[in-house]
């Protein structure tokens, strides 16, 4: 930040003096920017959280509206031109029952064109949770009941996978965010106490972390999740899942915080602050926290994937989020057996965002970890 105000003379010394006066965060940003994969990861993460914010707008049909006669419909690709004229549309599907297997077989019907438009009218929702509207990014022109589109096909109950994926993204990624936040609070508190005070309390916390880490987590999560009463509301289940996954997720963050505390406690500037008569709270908040903030941010980023995998796994098993709530795990539940996937491979589409976001968070966190100590 300061660097931009410095007028430098001559090219050779320009970069050097910029580096010398640049703030810590400026240096970190420069180093982070060099890590191409980390930058790409950051954009992907930002993109996913935009989906979280605008999920309702991006969906075009009610995620829980089901049409039994349209079950397991394959994805309908968008055709942009009609006889050389720009007229985006999808081809309607006609379903027939196979006389031998009694399965519904669908074929695109070139006669049945469903025209699409931007900002089409669809089901009503509140934009950003505030403004009531029924406009969606895309949708069939003039919302007739028989004009439906299924860009990613439909599931066994005939629900639109695209729309469910948008809403599911919101659930899964906000659970991840909430879980990380809770873990972070626990991690900073316990790791901070452990690193700052040392002694028996440090020993106690460290040994507890070791015990927690040597317990296989999934059976434990399953046990805790299964204990949730069946009649809980979606919100209650959501909160409970968040608590359950962060209950075991804080250990790594606590370890990082403690490590930084131990390293900084011996630094000269901490001693100087102590001699100058600063209170403990001030030393921690004003002198130590800024010095290891970047490390914490990196550790937090790297904690996201585990949170997302946990929620997805639990919901996949039927112990996490439950219908009518929609999350990535709930969507993947439909893809639990080979027969289902072999017949309708599009049920596996929700696996793609799971993998992409985990990769993105890993790259982003890797870059942050490298940049966290810009003086090194």
């Amino acid at each position, binding site marked *: 930040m300061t660097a931009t105000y410095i007028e430098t003379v001559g090219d050779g010394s320009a970069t050097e003096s910029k580096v010398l006066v640049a703030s810590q965060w400026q240096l970190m940003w420069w180093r982070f920017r060099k890590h191409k994969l980390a930058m790409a990861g950051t954009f992907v993460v930002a993109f996913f959280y935009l989906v979280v914010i605008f999920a309702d707008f991006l969906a075009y049909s009610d995620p829980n509206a089901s049409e039994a006669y349209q079950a397991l419909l394959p994805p309908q690709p968008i055709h942009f031109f009609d006889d050389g004229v720009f007229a985006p549309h999808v081809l309607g599907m006609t379903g027939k029952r196979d006389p031998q297997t009694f399965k519904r077989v669908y074929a695109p019907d070139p006669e049945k064109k469903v025209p699409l438009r931007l900002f089409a009218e669809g089901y009503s929702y509140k934009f950003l949770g505030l403004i009531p509207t029924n406009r969606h990014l895309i949708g069939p022109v003039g919302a007739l009941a028989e004009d439906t589109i299924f860009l990613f096909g439909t599931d066994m109950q005939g629900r639109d996978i695209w729309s469910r994926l948008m809403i599911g993204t919101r659930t899964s990624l906000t659970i991840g965010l909430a879980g990380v936040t809770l873990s972070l609070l626990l991690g900073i508190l316990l790791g901070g106490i452990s690193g700052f005070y040392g002694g028996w309390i440090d020993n106690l916390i460290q040994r507890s972390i070791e015990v927690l880490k*040597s317990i296989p987590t999934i059976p434990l999560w399953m046990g805790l999740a299964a204990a949730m009463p069946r009649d809980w509301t979606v919100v209650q289940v959501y909160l409970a899942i968040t608590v359950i996954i962060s209950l075991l997720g804080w250990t790594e963050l606590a370890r990082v915080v403690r490590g930084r505390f131990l390293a900084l406690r011996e630094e000269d500037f901490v001693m100087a602050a102590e001699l100058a008569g600063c209170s403990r709270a001030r030393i921690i908040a004003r002198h130590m926290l800024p010095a290891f903030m970047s490390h914490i941010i990196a550790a937090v980023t790297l904690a996201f994937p585990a949170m997302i995998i946990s929620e997805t796994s639990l919901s996949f098993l039927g112990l996490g989020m439950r219908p009518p709530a929609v999350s990535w795990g709930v969507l993947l539940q439909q893809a639990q057996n080979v027969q289902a*996937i072999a017949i309708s491979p599009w049920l596996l589409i929700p696996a793609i965002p799971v993998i992409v976001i985990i990769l993105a968070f890993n790259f982003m966190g890797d870059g942050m970890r490298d940049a966290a100590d810009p003086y090194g």
Partner: protein
Amino acid sequence: MVSYLVRRLFMAIVTMVAISVLSFAIIQLPPGDYITTYIAQLAADGTSLSDAEVLALREQYGLDQSFLVQYLRWIASVLHGDFGMSMEWRRPVSELIGERLWLTMAVAVAAILLTWALALPIGIYSAVRRYSVADYAFTIVGFIGLAVPNFLLALALMYFGYKFFGINIGGLFSPAYVDAPWSLARVWDLIKHLPLPAIVLGTAGTAEMIRVMRANLLDELHRPYVKTARARGLDERRVILKYPVRVALNPFVSILAYLFPYIVSGSIIVSLVLGLPTVGPLLLRALLAQDMFLAGAIVLLLGIMTVIGTFLSDMLLLWIDPRIRLEGRS
């Protein structure tokens, strides 16, 4: 070394106690208890119990006692090998778990062995031939291996197996051996079926281990002792394998202590997808049916198995690293 051993043993026991408390808490968590379930079952059959009878039953099962007393009773019977009765199956829990527990361990150990067998040579290769095409390829594959949750990997492998080879992969035995008594042929059949679940479970760990091995070995390769060995005319293979690899092996073994619980816990969910006869499917079913004695026993046994595995890996570290072995002697 003795003090290290004692400390490790003590930690293992503390962990086991913690796991047993957690397992019992899981048994106790759902609203209602065994008697409530029993009454509901009787009511479904058309009989009902008087209040006095209910009270007598509660007393008989010790359900009117505090959490602590109930826990101590439970743990005492567990120590005698009695895990209680499964409400759903109406059979002793130990009978239900029996073979499945060993198969769970077989899958986990196979995954660990595979992780080592892959990560060790690949890690060494990636460090020695840094920035080569193969190094980049392994890095990319490793990242993807880390990013794909193993149940998704299992689903994907099953899909491709079905689509391109027309086979239904999964299970741990061929149909002929599923219910057969144990014999050498059955063991061989099991060994033939282990690689697939081992690959699915081992990918993430392998990716992690490769990165650890590569980083550690890179640190060692620039040390003067490596140069000395080379200058003395040792051939390259010996220079690398005899000294730096041995030093780099240390974190490789210590990471095992965290890898083991991770793999055991992953095996639960992968077993469900691949249809493996491990405790995984049994645990899920027990939890969904609130068959709590069965579920609690499975969580407890998995935890204890893990603690033993972790303890053994620490012993391995003790054997490999003289610094720990000789600690406190000088």
